[in-house]
C-alpha cells in the first residue's frame, strides 16, 4: 500500500509548475528523444538497455511536466506521452533518478540539443524530496549532518583527539615542534573545511594539507563547530535542508572572522557550497570561496611552496571529479599542480570536462541499496585506469577516493589512490 497522498503530489508538482523558471521550462521542452545521449552515460555503457538512456530520465520528469503544465498534455496526454504522477511513475522516478544517475553531467555536454540532463534529474529529485521520498540511506546521511554537524556523525571528542595526534604527526614529519593544526582560531585568513571521511577514514590527507599550509606560512584554522564541506542535501534534492547546512558554514566564517573559506578536496562539497550554496540561502557570500586546489596552485605560482617532482617517481594519473571539473570549471589547475609535483603524469582517456564519472557521485556511495549497480558501472573507470599504466591515481575528491578505493580492490588494479594534497605534501621541499 503506497502512501503517496495528493498533498505530497501537489508539493512535488509545484517544482514543475508554480516554481518553474525559464531554465526549467526550456529543458522540459527541448528533448527530441533521439536517444543519442545513451553512449555518454556510464550506466548505459555498463548495462545497455532502454532504462538507462539519459533521455529516459529526462522524459520521466518532462512527461509529468507535459501532463500538468502544457495544454496539449492536459487535453491529449497520450499524444505526447504525458504521464500522471501516479504510484508507478513515482516508483520509477525513485529507481532511475536516485538509483541510476550520478548527476555527473556528461550526457549534458554530449546531448545533441543541449538539454541539461543532470539539472532535470536534480529537479526530479527535488520533487521526490518534497514528497519525503528520499532513499532512507541517503536521508540518514543528511540527517547526521543536520543533527551532529557532520555527515558521518563524528563526535567532537573523536574529532579533536584525531586532530591532536595528527598535529603530533605533522610536527614529527616537519621536524618542527611549532607546526600546528589550529582549531577555532579567530581572525585567520583561511577557514579550512574537511570532508568528514578525512578524520574518519583518511586522516593523512589532513596532515598533508596542514603541511602545505605550514610550508606556505599560511594563516589558517579548522573549526570544531562546523568543518564539514559536504552537503548531501544537494544530492537528496531537499532545498531547505541544503540551505541549513550551507548557512552553518557561512555562520562559522562570520563567527571565526575568517577572510575566506577554502574548500577541501570534495567535488560535490565544493559545488554545493560555492555554486549552489548562495542560491540555497538566497544571498551572495560576503567572503571569498576557493578550492584547496586553486589555493595550492597559487602557492606554487607565488613560490610560497617549493616542490621537487623527483620525490614522486611513480607513474601518476588523474581522475577528474565531475562536480569540480565539469560543473565547477576547475580543470587545468590540478594538472599544473601535478606537473610540478610528479615526474611522470599520464592523462586518462577521456579526461577533463569529458571525463567519465567514477560511479560514486550523485549520493551513490550513501545509497547502499544501489551498491550492485554502482560497482557495475565502476568497471568502466577500472578499465580507464588500467589503460593508463599508472600506479598512482590522484583525485581531488574524497567521495571519488572512496569509490576508487573500492574499484581498486574489486578489480584488483593494484594502484594507490591519493588526494592532490598528499601528492603535493610528498613533493614539498622544506626549508631547514
Amino acid at each position, binding site marked *: 500500500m503506497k502512501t503517496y497522498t495528493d498533498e505530497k503530489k501537489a508539493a512535488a508538482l509545484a517544482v514543475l509548475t508554480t516554481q518553474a523558471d525559464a531554465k526549467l521550462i*526550456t529543458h522540459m521542452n527541448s528533448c527530441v528523444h533521439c536517444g543519442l545521449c545513451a553512449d555518454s552515460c556510464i550506466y548505459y555503457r555498463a548495462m545497455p538497455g532502454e532504462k538507462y538512456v539519459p533521455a529516459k530520465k529526462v522524459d520521466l520528469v518532462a512527461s509529468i511536466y507535459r501532463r500538468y503544465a502544457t495544454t496539449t498534455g492536459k487535453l491529449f496526454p497520450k499524444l505526447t506521452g504525458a504521464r500522471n504522477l501516479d504510484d508507478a511513475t513515482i516508483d520509477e522516478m525513485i529507481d532511475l533518478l536516485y538509483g541510476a544517475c550520478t548527476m555527473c553531467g556528461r550526457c549534458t555536454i*554530449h546531448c545533441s540539443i543541449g538539454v541539461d540532463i543532470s539539472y532535470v534529474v536534480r529537479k526530479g529529485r527535488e520533487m521526490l524530496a518534497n514528497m519525503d521520498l528520499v532513499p532512507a540511506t541517503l536521508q540518514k546521511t543528511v540527517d547526521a549532518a543536520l543533527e551532529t554537524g557532520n555527515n558521518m556523525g563524528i563526535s567532537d571528542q573523536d574529532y579533536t583527539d584525531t586532530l591532536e595526534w595528527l598535529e603530533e604527526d605533522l610536527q614529527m614529519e616537519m621536524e618542527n615542534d611549532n607546526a600546528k593544526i589550529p582549531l577555532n582560531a579567530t581572525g585567520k585568513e583561511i577557514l579550512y573545511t574537511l570532508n568528514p571521511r578525512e578524520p574518519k577514514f583518511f586522516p593523512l590527507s589532513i596532515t598533508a594539507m596542514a603541511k602545505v599550509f605550514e610550508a606556505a606560512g599560511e594563516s589558517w584554522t579548522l573549526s570544531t563547530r562546523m568543518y564539514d564541506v559536504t552537503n548531501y542535501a544537494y544530492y537528496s534534492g531537499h532545498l531547505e535542508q541544503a540551505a541549513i547546512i550551507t548557512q552553518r558554514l557561512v555562520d562559522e566564517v562570520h563567527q571565526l572572522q575568517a577572510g575566506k573559506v577554502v574548500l577541501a578536496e570534495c567535488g560535490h562539497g565544493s559545488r554545493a557550497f560555492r555554486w549552489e*550554496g*548562495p542560491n540555497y540561502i538566497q544571498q551572495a557570500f560576503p567572503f571569498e570561496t576557493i578550492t584547496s586546489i586553486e589555493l595550492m596552485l597559487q602557492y606554487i605560482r607565488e613560490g610560497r611552496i617549493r616542490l621537487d617532482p623527483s620525490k614522486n617517481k611513480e607513474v601518476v594519473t588523474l581522475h577528474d571529479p565531475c562536480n569540480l*571539473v565539469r560543473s565547477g570549471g576547475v580543470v587545468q589547475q590540478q594538472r599544473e599542480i601535478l606537473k610540478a609535483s610528479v615526474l611522470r603524469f599520464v592523462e586518462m582517456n577521456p579526461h577533463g570536462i569529458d571525463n567519465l564519472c567514477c560511479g560514486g557521485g550523485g549520493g551513490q556511495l550513501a545509497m547502499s541499496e544501489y551498491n550492485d549497480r554502482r560497482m557495475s558501472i565502476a568497471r568502466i573507470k577500472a578499465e580507464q585506469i588500467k589503460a593508463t599504466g599508472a600506479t598512482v591515481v590522484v583525485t581531488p575528491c574524497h567521495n571519488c577516493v572512496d569509490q576508487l578505493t573500492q574499484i581498486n580492490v574489486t578489480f584488483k588494479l593494484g594502484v594507490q589512490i591519493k588526494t592532490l594534497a598528499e601528492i603535493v605534501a610528498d613533493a614539498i621541499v622544506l626549508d631547514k
Partner: protein
Amino acid sequence: MDWYHWMAIAALLFCLTSLSLHLLRLWRLGNHHDFSTPTGKPSAAMPYAFVGAMSPTRKESAYLHLPTYVGGLLYHIATFLGIALFFLFLVGIEIFQWLMWPLALIMIMGAVSGAAILVKRMVKPQMRALSNPDDYISNLIVTLFQLATAAVLFWPQLFPVYFVLTALLLLYIPLGKLKHAIYFFAARYQLGYFFGRRNVWPPR
C-alpha cells in the same frame, strides 16, 4: 490567392503566435538570478555553446553516430530550406528553372533521411521505448512536407495538397516536440550561461 493559400496563412499565424508566446514567456522569466560569484563569462561561452560545442568532433552524439548525425543534418537543412520555399510559394515568386533540380535533390535527401530516422525509431527497441505518438507524427509530417516541397517544384498542380499539408505542419509545430525549433536555441543559451559563469566553457 486561393483558399489553400489563406488556409496556410492562417496556420502560419497560429504557429508564429504560439511560438512567440513561448518565447515571450522565456523572455519575461529571464535568467534565474544566481547568487554565486562567477569565475567565468557567459558572453565568452555563448559562441562556444552555439558553434564549438555543436561541432561533430566535440559531441559523442555526433561522432559516435555519424550516419545518424549526417542524416539529421540533411533533414534539418531540408526543413529550413522547405520553410524558405514555402514563403516564396506563398507570395508567388517563381523559382529559377536551373535551381529546380538542386532544390528538389536537397528536399529528397532530407526526406530520405527523415524516413530513415523514422524507421530507426520504429525498429530499434530502445528508441521505441523512448518514443510517444508525437515523435512519430512529428517525424512523418516533416518528411511528407519535404516530399511535397520537392513534388510541387515540378508539378504545380499539386499546390493545393502541398499547402494543406504545410498548414497541418504549421498547426502541429506548437503542439508537440517540433517546438524545439525555438527551445533548441534557448537550451544552447542556458548551457552557455551555466558553463560560462563557471568557467567550464569555452574549454581551455
